[in-house]
């Protein structure tokens, strides 16, 4: 039988072994779909033409003077805040329970704000913003909106008496135009695209690990001795193992993305060729990961524990769980040394960012490079251990 025939026979065996436990095989496809759907839902944000989410805050006004009362009224009317007035004690108790997370306290001397004159010294009254320890972002948002409301109020009071100036004319001196910065027009962040790319990648790595563990198990069983006694070179065994792993990984990608397309509209808005190349590269990465696990894993239990830790780590840092723009800069810098980050960047680029082949080519090359590096180390180690095996150094 030719080498190709042997490789296909060995790969087909792995294919049948994969399908032998149909429930386990089905879970290989279902789990990433379920997780991707859940992550997509969690990170889903309405697009810009939909009403914004209002920030709930508590407002404590310790003075009943007219200026403070008017500011309270304007805050209550603010469309970006969901304001509820209360006492200081209640506000402190509520914020401590993070319900809501922010409270603004206007002190008894808050009215002095209206005496503010540009360039004139002023004893500035304190505005206390109480916030829960976990609500740093909400606290900044509340402060910004509050400042805007108060400054608008002051501007109206200062310039309202100027002849010819109406309240309607007191608009902002600039206008904000919101636009997403992407290669193609009208691109919106699609949390489902991100989550389906991320979870597919993560589970391809897990599948690679599982394939490596099966290989380790096989080597500890009588089948390995029998296989090594047969006229099959080790290179055929390793090629077939890689081929079968990549083959099943490709099927996982097709099923997962197929579901994403049908259920959540996950599409390839960029280069289709780029997408295909990336998918082939990540399938190769899964296969190389499998061989690497088999090569350096040691025992099955040890290989499983270490692999899970590594895969979860590089998934998290590589932005497979949450988009990298939510991660700190130092994490993003570390991620550049990981195949997951490059793969994610490429897949995100061709799915929701609409990038061209030229712009995702670095990702394709990086992922392929990682796969080749893993493969080289794995084959070297496996050949070395085969040599030791043949020499009796088990």
């Amino acid at each position, binding site marked *: 039988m030719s080498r190709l025939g*042997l490789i296909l026979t*060995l790969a087909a065996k792995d294919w049948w*072994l994969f399908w032998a436990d149909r429930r386990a095989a089905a879970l290989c496809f279902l789990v990433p779909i379920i997780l991707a759907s859940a992550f997509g839902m969690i990170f889903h944000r309405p697009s810009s033409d939909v009403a914004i989410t209002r920030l709930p805050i508590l407002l404590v006004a310790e003075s009943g003077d007219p200026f403070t009362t008017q500011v309270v009224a304007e805050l209550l009317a603010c469309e970006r805040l969901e304001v509820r007035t209360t006492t200081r004690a209640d506000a402190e108790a509520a914020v401590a329970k993070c319900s809501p997370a922010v409270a603004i306290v206007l002190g008894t001397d808050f009215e002095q704000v209206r005496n503010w004159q540009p360039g004139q010294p002023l004893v500035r009254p304190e505005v206390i913003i109480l916030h829960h320890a976990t609500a740093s972002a909400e606290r900044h948002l509340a402060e910004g909106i509050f400042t805007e409301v108060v400054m608008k109020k002051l501007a109206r009071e200062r310039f309202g008496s100027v002849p010819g100036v109406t309240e309607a004319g007191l608009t902002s001196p600039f206008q904000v135009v919101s636009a997403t910065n992407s290669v193609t027009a009208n691109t919106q962040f699609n949390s489902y695209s991100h989550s389906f790319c991320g979870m597919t990648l993560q589970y391809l790595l897990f599948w690679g690990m599982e394939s490596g563990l099966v290989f380790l198990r096989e080597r500890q069983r009588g089948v390995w*001795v029998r296989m090594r006694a*047969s006229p099959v070179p080790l290179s055929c065994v390793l090629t077939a193992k890689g081929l079968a792993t990549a083959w099943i990984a490709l099927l996982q990608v097709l099923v997962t993305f197929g579901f994403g397309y049908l259920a959540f509209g996950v599409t390839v808005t960029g280069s289709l060729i780029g997408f295909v190349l990336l998918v082939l590269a990540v399938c190769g990465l899964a296969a190389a990961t499998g061989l690497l696990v088999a090569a350096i894993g040691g025992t099955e239990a040890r290989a499983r524990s270490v692999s899970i830790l590594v895969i979860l780590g590089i998934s998290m840092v590589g932005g497979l769980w949450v988009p990298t723009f939510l991660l700190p800069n130092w994490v993003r810098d570390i991620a550049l040394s990981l195949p997951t980050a490059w793969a994610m960047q490429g897949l995100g680029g061709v799915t929701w960012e609409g990038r061209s082949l030229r712009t995702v080519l670095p990702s394709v090359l990086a992922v392929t490079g990682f796969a080749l590096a893993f493969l080289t180390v794995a084959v070297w180690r496996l050949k070395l251990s085969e040599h030791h095996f043949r*020499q*009796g150094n088990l």
Partner: protein
Amino acid sequence: MPLPVILSLSNIRVRYGTRVAVDGLSLDVRRGEIVGLLGPNGSGKSTTLAVAAGVLDPIEGTATVAGVSRATDPAGFARRIGLVPQVCGLYDELTATENLAFFGRLYGLTGHDLRQRIVRVLSRVGLANRATQRVNTFSGGMKQRLNLAVALIHDPPVLLLDEPTASLDPASRDALFVDLTRLREEGHAILLSTHHLDEAELGCDRVAILDRGQLVACGKPAELLRGPLTDHHALYGTLRVRPPKYLERAIRQRLASHADFEITGRRLRLSAETAEGLGRALAALLAEGVELETYRTPTGTLERALREPN
């Protein structure tokens, strides 16, 4: 006229680190012959079989099958060998047919020829009616029979079996030896390892006794049994029920001064320095409620050779 030598091991030397596992072993196995490798654990039986199967490279010496060595023609060498590993070399998740088809294809068998061979070997080992069932539903004896069938799928002239009866009950063991005898009659050369004297004595044409990697005796079991009687007396038996561990310990303590015994599954080996000692030991065992199903008392040098090779 003796049949031609088909498997030849010449001056084989294998080392595991600093320990010499096989030391200058030479052994020929002829067509239509069953040779048993006999020796205690660690004597080099499995290592010898691994070299014969081509999965282990000796640091010295050569293994040839029908004149073909692994070094010159690895594929040709492998095609002439059928290996039955001690731990079943089967995929539990696949059916008997799928296992046979997979291993058959590794030996270049395809299509109608492969299908015919699968049917033939399955019926030969009595598993034709289990062809489409997964191996994980098989008993230990059935797995061992399928293990043998896989080794036969490419019809090799040489069969190597590594402790094939290790996990078998007496009935399965007898069935296996019936199969092996039939294969011998068909002209296969069979080399098997065992540490059971009765198997070597009853099932093998020749016995090669290994100790610490060296071949210390080789000949027909009868020749070895015809050796001078010694001061050593032994009894081999099959127990009706294996005694519980605590009872085994108690008996061992009672017999410690004048006899030695070993229980493997339901097999019993009892030995003593004198006939009187053996009788006392047997009486002590029976007094503890241990029931013997069968027993026999060989009194030759085979046991002596195994225990005291030098």
